[in-house]
């Protein structure tokens, strides 16, 4: 057996077959929808293929990294992320009224970094304190969560802050944050809604109001929601057929290869397609939770469970936005939307899941 194929096959040993199959199925659907939504643009399709290839590569590489090594990346990554966020707050570039970018020779959003760094950091922290978890650990965890959350919130970037907050919360939740704390927090949150509303920026308030009555601004911001719900609704049970969606083909759907790709999918493949797609996502989540349940270490358990829930949160927020039950926030649909960064980040997460799944026996502590 030649040496090259040996390390190659060895590398593939750490790929979880079930996860890979599910992910590839969704990516296949994505390719078909991007093809239709881009008007068969060769540049878009080849770009998408390159992104997919790259992301799958990253996934395989990460799958080969043992979890105990992954856990060590958490603290430095987290610290770097927070430092960069502070840097953004001090020296960041302002675009569209928000200070989110840092000029490092290229435009860089540190908040992207924290999407993985925060769960890694928290999982590392709780793993270190396994079996001696006490209230103060949750308190420290909470602080670790709140610092980047607030930094991102004041950029302002409500959407990313909420997503980050959700992933941090999931981790605390799986780490055993007491129910009474959760309930107390939820009650407090609900009670402070009016205060939060008052602190929200105009455009944020408008987006929420738009959701309640999209027709109030049919040519402005409400246009997106109106057109995407028309697209989805007109798809019916079986859809209009691939490349047959009029809302899609005639330009009525905005951002239709990226954030609003679900509108194109819903129009062309209908409710049957939606059930299939949501089913695939649920299967990915289920596989992730099974991996979490079987994971030998606390770090693996927490990461697998958090990443699984996090993925579905993205699915829910995106689909909810496109079908008009959540405000418009710039969240892509996992594995479906065109865009390299999001895809790579996501499959990096899937790679971590695979790593946790396949390093069970190898690293039994």
């Amino acid at each position: 057996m030649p040496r090259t194929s040996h390390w190659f096959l060895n590398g593939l040993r750490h790929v979880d077959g079930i996860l890979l199959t599910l992910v590839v199925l969704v990516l296949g659907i994505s390719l078909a929808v991007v093809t239709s939504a881009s008007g068969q643009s060769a540049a878009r399709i080849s770009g998408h293929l390159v992104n997919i290839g790259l992301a799958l590569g990253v996934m395989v590489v990460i799958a080969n990294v043992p979890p105990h090594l992954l856990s060590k990346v958490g603290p430095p990554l987290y610290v770097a992320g927070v430092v960069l966020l502070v840097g953004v707050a001090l020296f960041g570039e302002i675009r569209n009224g928000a200070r989110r970018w840092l000029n490092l020779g290229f435009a860089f959003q540190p908040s992207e970094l924290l999407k993985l760094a925060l769960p890694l950091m928290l999982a590392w922290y709780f793993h270190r304190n396994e079996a001696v978890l006490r209230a103060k650990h949750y308190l420290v965890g909470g602080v670790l969560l709140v610092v980047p959350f607030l930094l991102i919130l004041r950029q302002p970037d409500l959407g990313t802050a909420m997503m980050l907050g959700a992933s941090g919360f999931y981790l605390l939740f799986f780490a055993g944050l007491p129910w009474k704390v959760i309930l107390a927090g939820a009650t407090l949150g609900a009670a402070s809604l009016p205060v939060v509303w008052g602190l929200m920026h105009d455009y944020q308030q408008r987006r929420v109001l738009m959701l309640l009555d999209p027709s109030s601004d049919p040519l402005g911001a409400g246009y997106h929601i109106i057109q995407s719900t028309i697209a989805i609704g007109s798809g019916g049970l079986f859809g209009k057929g691939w490349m047959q969606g009029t809302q899609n083909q005639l330009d009525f759907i905005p951002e239709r290869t990226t954030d609003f790709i679900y509108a194109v999918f819903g129009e062309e493949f209908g409710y049957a397609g939606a059930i299939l797609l949501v089913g695939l996502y649920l299967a990915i989540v289920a596989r992730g939770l099974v991996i979490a349940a079987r994971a030998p270490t606390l770090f693996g358990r927490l990461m697998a469970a958090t990443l699984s829930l996090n993925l579905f949160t993205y699915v829910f927020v995106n689909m909810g936005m496109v079908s008009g039950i959540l405000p418009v926030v710039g969240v892509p649909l996992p594995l479906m939307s065109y865009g390299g960064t999001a895809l790579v980040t996501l499959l990096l997460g899937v790679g971590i899941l695979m790593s946790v799944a396949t390093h069970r026996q190898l690293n039994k502590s």
Partner: protein
Amino acid sequence: MPLATPLKNLDRELARFHGRLKAGAAFVVLLAAALLGRGFYLQITQHEYYIQRAENNRISLVPVAPNRGLILDRKGRILAENYSAYTLELTRAQPRDLEATLAEVGKLIKITPGELRSFRRLLAESHEFETVPLKSKLTDEEVAILAANHYRLPGAEVKARLFRNYRAGSGMSHVVGFIGRINDRDLKALRESGREQNYRGTVHIGKTGLEQSYETLLHGRTGFDQMETDASGRAVRALSRIPPVAGKDLRLYLDRDLQAIAEQAFGDYTGGLVALDPNTGGVLALVSKPGFDPNLFIDGIDPETWKALNDSPERPMVNRVLRGVYPPGSTIKPFMALAGLELGVRKPADITVDPGYFTLPNSSHQFRDWKHGGHGLVDMRRAIAQSCDTYFYKLAFDMGIDRMHDYLAKFGFGEKTGIDLEGESPGLLPSRDWKQRRWKKEWYPGETVIAGIGQGYHLTTPLQLAAAVAMIANGGKRIEPRLVQAVRDPLTHVWQPQPVAVRGQLALKPEDLAVIRQGMMDAMRPGGTAAAAAAGAPYTIAGKTGTAQVVGIKQGARYDAGSLSRKNRDHALFIAYAPAENPTIAVAVLVENGGHGGSTAAPIARAVFDYYLTGKRPGNMKPEGNDASD
């Protein structure tokens, strides 16, 4: 927890984690159920609604305006035509795009502030997906520039549109009228009559003249293209088309040359002339001087010109033939005479002694004859020929106002003639009832006396006079005047003659009519009031002159044209028909401040007769041969 071992904690934490996994899974299932529930609502429950919304998004009906019908004179020469020119039109897509496109267009070609203003107004009134003209009559160069930069101008289109042109210019302004941009009032009227849909895509509508009165025929039926349009409003492909049906063409009785001759014959006098075919009611010429250039109005007249036209003391916008009301003066006399005969008040040979005035019994007030010293002994024929006032004072007094009113009404006085133009005035035929209603006063005998020579309350339009004299010419047939002779269907190209609108036939004794006609012929012979105007004519004219007072002349004073400023001079009137034996044309002429009818109004009628009956043009007029073939 002093006794708790880490190992025990480990187990507990693991069990708790599995519990949390189940809670997490339940949470995910809950979220998925929410998504699928929303999907079910949109895609199953509300599917019909959204499919309709998607179709409305996609499909738009683009109106295709029909070509407006042409207006031709009796010889088929064009009076109102259409010509094609390019216009720049914009779709109302996304407002942002529109402003950007407007700015871009402004850099490429010159857009005046006025054009921009009217564009914004039209835009506000237009339907979604309709294109709105920004600049019309583009030059070839502008078309080329716009075509080359098309990709930079989303929502902009260069379209070939039809424009209206009035070839005859001001000479026909009061007949043909003009079209103008559809305004709010027009829109309201269209909406109320349920014709609004048929005017989508149409910018203009008939405002005056034939363009107004035949609007329904001229406009045609709007067609519709069913287009698939993309989100920016640009048409992607045509799905189906209902073709437009062009408007109908109109052919008039009117002769363009005759019209021009009549207009010229006025010289620099203002006034009106109408010539009718007494057998059909067809309007052969209809002149109201001064006129105006109807082409100015099509795309909105500029305020200065409009003010000048409106404020002009000559009032060029008023159609004097239809709307100008004047006392009929002596032109009423033939009708009075006929009334006297038919009602048995006079016999043709009855003699009236004219000492130069008439007095009522028990009154010293003198109703004076125009001729100082009087006409002596006059019978009916001579009374008409010489326009003897005293004869008709006495006749009117003997007849009484009631019988006079009822009989004159039969000739259409005091009533609209029913011509196929809008805005006609009914004039005023006074009666005892009318005076009671209007002034709450009783009728005085003196008012009857002056009514006998067409003075006092009586007011007529030149059109009424022409229609009335046509009844003398055709033996009492009352016909509504008509401009349009035939209508051509754009599909079959067949001219459909319009019916002659006969309102009634007056039963006149031929021998009575003959006396009146003789009197009117005598008026055109030596010794008659308009003899000079008939001199040398190779046909016989029957006519009657008249003057309508502009200022009252005091008792005992004499009217002296020379001492009055022109605007206070009497209006000159003349009614006539020819050839007297077998009339084919009847005219009424009004010359404002023209003085005596015989000297200013009658020669105008003569010029019209000459051309119509013999083809002879006045010496100073060149024949117009340049476009006689169209």
